[in-house]
């Protein structure tokens, strides 16, 4: 394929530094619980043994502090001579899986994955390639695909590995290159708070990538970040005006969303606060169900007119078309390309949402894992693969999911839920109604949205992207690659199995 003929792409420079960004809220939600029984005599032996700092005793205090569960590595530690449980003279220590760990998560976003994402957002340190937090437990798709990673560890320098993504691969038009193969997916004002949007926009700016307005209009507070914010035009057309199209470098047409393919956006009445309603030019506290489909587009010719319209308003824009994954997704993709789209964005059935009927999330349209190779192969056969930027989203949770997506044939990915998990989302799934998110992320409640500080949030998301980039670098280095575009379409590097070949102790 043609990438071998292209000159070596420059490695990204000036990437943001990682910083420690802890969360007060999340530090008590951990993998293990260390229990100290009343029999403890506060002798302090455990404090002197534990190299991870679980046990701490402050000089001059009679009583030892309660254990810091966060640092404990769990029963895996029992092989060590310093295992506190075995050495306690009064046998008052025990370690167990925490109840919270057991009640959190689901097969797609396991507890391990949520905790690992929080840890990456906090520290910016990448996960090992065989960490259990890399894959879910849903028993199919990404969770059944594993890289055949060469076992020998290799030395590599991240600055020499290129993870960039070109967003316009056509011969003409504005060229935009982002240093990581991901950008942020659309989340409307109304489904999430303006602080969440700001966190994502600031993180996008620091990584020189993009985030997206979603369909709820373009809040003024985002304008300073306009070079990193995509204007989305969705079927509801909320808040879409000439100037919001003109200020964007990328304009995205949302035909459908993976979580509710064939249905318009849902914003239930409680979350449509006066501020949201003003932005959407709607009546406050009414439920807003966007139409489906675009009532101005009933054919591929209409679709071309649609793109031409955006192009005439903003001739420099890169045009993205976001579609869901029906049976004929490859025809839709080709049609979008010939109508003038630069980016074909496939949103798979298991994608995130602020509110969607459960029946649609589970049953309508196929998972993204099937759509990517289908479209990739079709575009190759059509001879236009290198003119299209193929972006996938919908149920991509980790850096490894993104890498698998690229190996299946996409150029890059769009990330949504992982950004929110970095901000402290526990995936409780109560975003849709009432006051919205109790953690202040997917809410428009004037009290709750204060829980997220956008500078803090931006650093957490930025840390996550940094950790992901380092993980991609390690994966590429293992495969002796120095550019992530070399991974594209390399399905031969994947194996289909129930478990990775080797998994660190759980």
């Amino acid at each position: 394929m043609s990438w071998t003929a292209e000159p070596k792409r420059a490695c990204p420079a000036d990437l943001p530094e990682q910083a420690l960004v802890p969360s007060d809220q999340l530090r008590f939600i951990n993998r293990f619980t260390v229990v100290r029984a009343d029999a403890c005599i506060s002798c302090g032996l455990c404090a002197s043994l534990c190299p991870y700092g679980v046990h701490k005793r402050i000089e001059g205090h009679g009583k030892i502090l309660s254990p810091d569960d966060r640092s404990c590595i769990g029963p895996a530690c029992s092989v060590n001579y310093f295992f506190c449980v075995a050495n306690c003279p009064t046998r008052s220590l025990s370690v167990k899986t925490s109840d919270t760990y057991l009640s959190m998560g689901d097969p797609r976003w396991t507890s391990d994955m949520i905790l690992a994402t929080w840890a990456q957002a906090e520290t910016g340190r990448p996960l090992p390639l065989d960490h259990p937090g890399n894959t879910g437990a849903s028993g199919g798709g990404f969770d059944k695909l594993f890289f055949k990673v060469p076992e020998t560890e290799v030395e590599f320098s991240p600055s020499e590995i290129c993870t960039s993504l070109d967003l316009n691969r056509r011969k003409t038009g504005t060229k935009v290159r982002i240093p990581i193969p991901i950008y942020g997916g659309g989340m409307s004002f109304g489904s999430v708070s303006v602080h969440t949007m700001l966190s994502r926009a600031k993180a996008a700016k620091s990584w020189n990538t993009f985030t997206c307005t979603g369909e709820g209009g373009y809040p003024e507070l985002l304008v300073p970040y306009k070079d990193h914010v995509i204007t989305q035009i969705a079927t509801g057309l909320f808040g879409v005006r000439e100037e919001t199209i003109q200020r964007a470098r990328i304009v995205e047409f949302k035909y459908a969303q993976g979580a509710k393919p064939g249905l318009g956006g849902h914003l239930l009445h409680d979350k449509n606060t006066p501020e949201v309603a003003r932005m959407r030019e709607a009546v406050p506290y009414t439920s807003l169900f966007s139409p489906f489909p675009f009532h101005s587009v009933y054919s591929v010719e209409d679709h071309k007119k649609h793109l031409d319209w955006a192009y005439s308003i903003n001739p420099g824009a890169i045009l993205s078309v976001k579609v869901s994954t029906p049976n004929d997704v490859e025809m839709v993709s080709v049609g979008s390309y010939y109508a003038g789209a630069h980016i074909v964005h496939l949103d798979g059935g298991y994608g995130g949402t602020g509110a969607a009927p459960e029946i649609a999330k589970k049953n309508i349209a196929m998972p993204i894992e099937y759509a990517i190779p289908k479209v990739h192969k079709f575009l190759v056969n059509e001879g236009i693969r290198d003119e299209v930027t193929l972006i996938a989203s919908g149920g991509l949770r980790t850096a490894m999911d993104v890498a698998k997506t690229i190996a299946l044939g996409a150029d890059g990915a769009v990330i949504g839920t992982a950004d929110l998990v970095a901000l402290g989302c526990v995936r409780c799934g109560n975003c849709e109604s009432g006051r919205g998110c109790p953690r202040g992320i997917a809410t428009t409640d004037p009290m709750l949205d204060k829980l997220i500080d956008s500078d803090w949030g931006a650093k957490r998301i930025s840390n996550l992207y940094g950790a992901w980039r380092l993980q991609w670098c390690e994966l590429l280095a293992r495969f002796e690659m120095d550019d992530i575009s070399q991974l594209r379409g390399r399905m031969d590097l994947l194996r289909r199995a129930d478990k990775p070949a080797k998994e660190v102790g759980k």
Partner: protein
Amino acid sequence: MFERYHIPIKMVEGRAKPVPKFVIVRADNCVNCGKCEKACIYGAHKRSEEDPRKMADPQNQLCKNCFRCVSECPQRALTMSPGPEYRLLGKGIWTPLMISTIWGESETGKIPVFGAGYRGMFAGPGFDGMWTDMSEIVRPTRDGIHGREFISTSVDLGSKPAFLEFDKDGRVASDDAHALLELPIPFVMDISRLRILHGNMMSGYLHAAKHLNTLLMASPALVPHDLPDDERTRLVPVYPESTDVGTLELPRGVRIAEIQLTPRWREDVRKFKERFPGTVLALRMNAGGEVDRLLPDLVDAKVDVAHLVFDEQGSEHMEDKRHSKDSLRAAHKSLVSRKIRDQITIITGGGIAAAEHVPKSILCGADAVALEKALLIALECRDCPSCSKESCPINLHEAPVEWVEGRVLNMVGAWRDQLLEVLGAMGLREVRRLRGELGRAIFYEDVEMEAFGELKGGELDG
């Protein structure tokens, strides 16, 4: 005048103690500081009413699993664990989630809408191994339940003539062989196999069937004699194997009756057609490979409706235990290949545990779906392993008639709306066009093979 079909829904609260998904435990080291009360936006933590110095026990049924109280408790006295009673609900395809979803639908009558993406397994056996198609553009028919476009959910029970015949004067020749009944929804209610049925439940179901303008299949022995006419026409008597069709007396007003498939079925059908020419005849049978071969014969014998029965997990009772997804496809195809599909109606019953199973059954080839156990779950049934009047945790025998009716209307209303959403997403205007539309279904085994068939390192299993 045209009237759009409408199912009246209203809030019908549960009678039983709720089964919480999560249980919060407050340990002894709680100092009653009240921080959890401020943290919880759902009101699960409150001070005790008798002694405001103390925190009351957490209201677990209000908990939505956000962990705010757990993470904000300064004493770390709160822990949350999965509710033990909830986890043990149901078995097989009747998962705790399926059961609690039906409870919610029967209470509110609304489509379950929640935040965050899909959270279940990637795929699974039975109906979990298929997805329905959608289309991005085409046809101004959409907007689902929120739009102005009308999507028809009407189905016909009975055989349709393949073409019209005219007599020599150009009038349509009457054809009594085609008894036909139109229902506004592709659901019938079948209480003939329910494991428990009290008097009020029977009346509640019947009222619901009347309101829904659909049918209630029940054993004739259970039907009260003094029913008003508008209720009696809603009944489908289900006669047992021992019935002698030659001497059978149908209750007045009945438009459709069901007999069992027995070795003497040809004789029974002939007699029924002779004695009750305008009445739709349904033949009930356990689904299986034998049935695929038998269906063309049933068409020849002018049976109007084949009612295929599966067990409550949706599997065939005998032989290879195929799931109804596969069984229905085989039955449908055996008729289509002989060009006689429209001469018989297929009703499927058993293993219908969620709204999504309705469009999926119809996609696989059924014309209509019989609701059975879901009708019990709608009344908050906990699907206990053993069932008796005395041990019933929800005192089902005391359930008022109006309550039963309201819960059923709500569930059917929510299921129909979800059917409309699926039809809307596919760009279909009527549910009749969904039947057997296999090109608009996506089957796990097909897409998995297409996408990953070339991958080494694992066999293509389930």
